């Protein structure tokens, strides 16, 4: 994905081209492109007059930032303690099998990105899977397919 420099410039200018706003700027760039493309980071570094490595360091420090293109839907499987004891590993295995990707990867048709997280603060609902921003509580390996299907068939369909 090519991001045009003017888009990045607009975001940078919205924050007054200030170094202190680096994280907010990156958040907005990510919201715009769904990830942080190399070109965009270079542009941000140039505009803020920061060494690229500093921008890159921040982008790699926070888990919320991604340097890889992400799929249309984010699937987050919680592996926190509470979810773990309630059977999250089996759920993860099923999601992996259904989507045919490993955690951190995106499906070939770029519809889904799979990620694991360690506790989402909703332990009572565990085992928990969050797709985009919808919480799917008390999930079992058997329910995984049905949940994912809702997202497979939206939009373009497949």
């Amino acid at each position, binding site marked *: 994905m090519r991001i045009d420099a003017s888009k990045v410039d607009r975001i940078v200018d919205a924050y007054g081209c200030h170094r202190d706003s680096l994280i907010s700027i990156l958040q907005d760039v990510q919201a715009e492109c769904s990830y942080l493309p*190399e070109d965009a*980071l270079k542009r941000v570094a140039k505009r803020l007059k920061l*060494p*690229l*490595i*500093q*921008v*890159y*360091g921040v982008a*790699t*420090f926070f888990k919320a930032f991604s340097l890889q293109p992400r799929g249309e839907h984010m699937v987050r499987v919680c592996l926190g303690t509470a979810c773990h004891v309630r059977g999250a590993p089996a759920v993860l295995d099923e999601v992996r099998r259904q989507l045919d990707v490993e955690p951190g990867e995106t499906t070939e048709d770029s519809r889904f990105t799979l990620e694991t997280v360690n506790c989402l603060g909703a332990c009572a609902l565990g085992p928990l899977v969050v797709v985009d921003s919808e919480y799917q509580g008390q999930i079992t390996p058997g329910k995984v397919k049905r949940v994912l299907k809702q997202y497979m068939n939206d939009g373009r369909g497949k």
Partner: protein
Amino acid sequence: MIELTIDGTKVRAAPGTTVLEAAREMGIVIPTLCYYPGLSSYGECRVCLVEMVKGRGRSSLEASCALPVEQGQVILTSSAKVKKARRVVVELLLASCPSSKTLQCMASNMGINQVRFKIKPRECILCGRCVRYCKEQMRSGGIGFTGRGTARRVTTAFGHTPEECRNCGGCQWICPVCERACTADSLVNGLCGGCQNLAHVETCEICTGCSESVGAHGHTVY
């Protein structure tokens, strides 16, 4: 001037100096790794630990390279507590960098006879010397820390040689780890012991004695 006591001797130091500098001024040896004269203090490696006596039998361990001198401070630089703590620190560092000669030498100086931690070579102790050198001395900022936790590394952005880099080689020169590795090829308890190895050393046929330290197998014969 500030007056403090280091190892029972009263010393005076200018405000703003660190305990490490004050102690070195007196000729006291304190090992350091992440500290480097001319670079800012970073306080990461913890091998420069000293004991700060607080009275009533209490004391705390502090990194001397990042500890400013204070009026009436009482510092011990080689108490049993300090020595023990430093040994653990070096053991931990060795577990992530067993090939570092600096670390191996430090270990033998401290009388460490085994590394009790699982050895996972990462070839970097994240001391940040290279990063600070690049930024503060070269005014470049080509390299830096990326990632966090166990994924923390020193790298260049996207793995490309950065535009800012001046090819000074300083980052490599200043690194306490990416130097000539220990030549002993088998670690016993995580320690090399190469220097104590008295096996016959082969040298170049036309060797004029380049005085490189050689291990059990000598250096390459050219």
